[in-house]
């Protein structure tokens, strides 16, 4: 199954607001083993110049991958979901995500390629605050392995 190159540039409506709370950030910090109190203690975060505790850098994927499901749900995107693996991930942080943020994700399709029987789909998610402040650009390449078992 080959993806239609005409999908490149397609963008989707902004997501619902994703509220970021201190508890989920502390849980994420624990799950990746970070102990820096700037993720856990609002006083320490403020002393470091942040309005509240900040997220570890890869937390952005929790918001962006959730939002990017809008692409996999698009009936024009014929990816065999059971064969999809994460190929590449990139973040450009405009500022740290922090507790209290109300984030909106806007997803678009950046690239579509076919390599060695595998379909490669690159999505870009712009995370902004509700007020439009740029927070993070998250770029994800998904690989749908071909039915012939091509390497991924």
């Amino acid at each position, binding site marked *: 199954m080959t993806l239609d190159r005409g999908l490149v540039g397609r963008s989707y409506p902004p997501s619902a607001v994703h509220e970021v709370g201190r508890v*989920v950030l502390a*849980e*994420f910090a*624990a*799950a*990746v*083993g*970070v102990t*820096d109190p*700037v*993720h856990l203690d609002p006083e320490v975060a403020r002393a*470091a110049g*942040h309005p509240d505790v*900040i997220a*570890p*850098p*890869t937390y952005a*994927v*929790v918001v962006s*991958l*959730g939002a990017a499901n809008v692409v996999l749900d698009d009936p024009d995107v014929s990816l065999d979901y*059971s064969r999809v*693996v*994460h*190929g*590449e*991930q*990139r*973040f*450009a*942080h405009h*500022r*740290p995500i922090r507790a209290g943020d109300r984030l909106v994700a806007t997803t678009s399709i950046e690239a579509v390629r076919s390599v060695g029987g595998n379909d490669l789909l690159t999505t870009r998610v712009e995370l902004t605050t509700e007020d439009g402040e740029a927070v993070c650009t998250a*770029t994800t390449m998904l690989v749908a392995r071909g039915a012939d*078992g091509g390497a991924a």
Partner: protein
Amino acid sequence: MSRPEIAVGTELPDRTFPVTRADLVRYAGASKDFNPIHWSDRVATAVGLPGVIAHGMLTMALAARAVTEWTGDPAALVEYQVRFGRPVVVPDDDAGAEVVVRGRVASVGDDGRARIDLTVTSSGEKVLSLARAVVRIP
């Protein structure tokens, strides 16, 4: 914490991160990624994997720690990218797997940013490629 010297060629301290099945369960909950290949050997082997594998994003997060815990400022990591190569297979025992992260400052720009190239392995095999972090130098 004292700030490290950041110059081209500076090597980061090698880091080794153990990853157990319990870590995968905790990461699944925190990230909301409940794909069964990260907790069910039955499902993992049915799709052709050797067994349960770590979330790629957990490996990416551990590699980021090698950078942020070296610079001492998680907010200074402004760009970060990886390509997921081989999976990290996590056996169902107390030791689990190990993710080993090495890093080296590849360039220091006039814009107050430095690029760090990371080498990330497990069981001697490279699991991430093109793993690069850009940090703002204080």
